[in-house]
């Protein structure tokens, strides 16, 4: 049973969309079961979620939300709001809070509010934040994100902000690693970026 609770995920909003990112390591104990995992999961065309916690639980929840939002879209005739997606996640995570282990960040773009990031951590609360971090690796990032985040960043500033954060966590957290997966979601769609090997941002290393 693989657990990417041991993971690092992050999301930040900018004027016009969001940038989300995750590492790619899934561990089963100390064994790395998957080193190229994709933890950024599509929920609708313009709304993604970053998954941390039990792989099985988060995959199941995301599949259910994807189904429900697809249904909603057909009934309403327009794309769902990020707020709706986040609350759909919340409903499942809160009602089953004793039985599942899911720490999710919902992020996307809608035409009403633009780019939004909602954190849905373990107990099932929802909170909108300008940026959110999650997973075991996020503990190493609070200082970094608090000092480096500036409001009203552009997409070009958000991408290195998230990439640097993930790289720092990967360097220190045993349960995070592999490659960095990023996605930028705007009104024009989703742009996915992968940073491998030498493309990962580098910081002080004594060798």
């Amino acid at each position, binding site marked *: 049973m693989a657990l990417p609770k*041991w993971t690092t995920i992050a999301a930040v909003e900018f004027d016009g969309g969001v940038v989300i990112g995750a*590492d790619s*390591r899934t*561990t089963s*104990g*100390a*064994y*790395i079961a998957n*080193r190229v995992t994709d933890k950024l999961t599509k929920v609708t065309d313009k709304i993604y979620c970053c998954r941390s916690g039990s792989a099985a639980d988060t995959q199941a929840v995301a599949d259910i939300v994807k189904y429900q939002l697809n249904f909603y879209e057909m009934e309403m005739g327009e794309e769902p709001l990020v707020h709706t997606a986040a609350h759909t996640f919340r409903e499942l995570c809160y009602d089953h809070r004793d039985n599942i282990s899911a720490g999710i960040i919902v992020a996307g773009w809608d035409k009403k509010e633009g780019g939004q990031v909602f954190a849905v951590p373990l107990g099932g609360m929802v909170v909108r934040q300008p940026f959110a971090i999650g997973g*075991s690796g996020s503990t*190493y990032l609070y200082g970094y994100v608090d000092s480096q985040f500036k409001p009203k960043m552009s997409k070009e500033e958000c991408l290195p902000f998230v990439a640097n954060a993930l790289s720092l966590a*990967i*360097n*220190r*957290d*045993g*349960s*995070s*690693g*592999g490659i960095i997966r990023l996605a930028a979601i705007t009104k024009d769609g989703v742009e996915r970026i992968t940073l491998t*090997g030498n493309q990962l941002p580098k910081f002080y*290393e*004594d*060798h």
Partner: protein
Amino acid sequence: MSILAYNGAAIIAMNGKDCVAIAADRRFGVQAQTVSMDFDKIFEMGPHLYIGLPGLATDVQTVSQRLNFRLKMYELRENRRIRPKTFMSMVSNLLYERRFGPYFVEPVVAGLDPKTHQPFIASMDLIGCPMITDDFVVSGTCSEQMYGMCESLWEPNLEPDDLFETISQALMNAFDRDAVSGWGAVVYIIEKDKVTKKLLKTRMD
């Protein structure tokens, strides 16, 4: 989590043509958190005798210090360098003394005989059961991964340069599949006239 996996480590020793190699990762961590990336787990016990100590970090340091003491006393009494097989027995004895409250280390010994320059490698469990092989020995949290890599890559009579490549690839690809080892690696190639120490550039995750 097992006490032997609390700090995490990966060590391999391999036999080559008139040489031996011993390699280890350099991570020092506390469960999932990496604290430093320059923690030495291979200790020099003689000009051509090395011991690798994976396991609980506090015992890695204590066992190496206690062993050093016993070795120096041996050298004073015998007035000569210890032979690798005798050294292995010395380690085994030290560990078995603590049979019912053991040191949480599973050592790997690698060296050349001081007179004949015969290559020697051996490993032990945490209570001192020795195992001498003529191909390779592995120890650490990713031992299964290391066995797979060594079994596929090792062949007999490798020259020092080829042995370096083989042991490096075996170690790196094994600890890249282990969440608690890695973050740098060091390789010692021990030949009869010189010992080469090389640091590997590895993934730091």
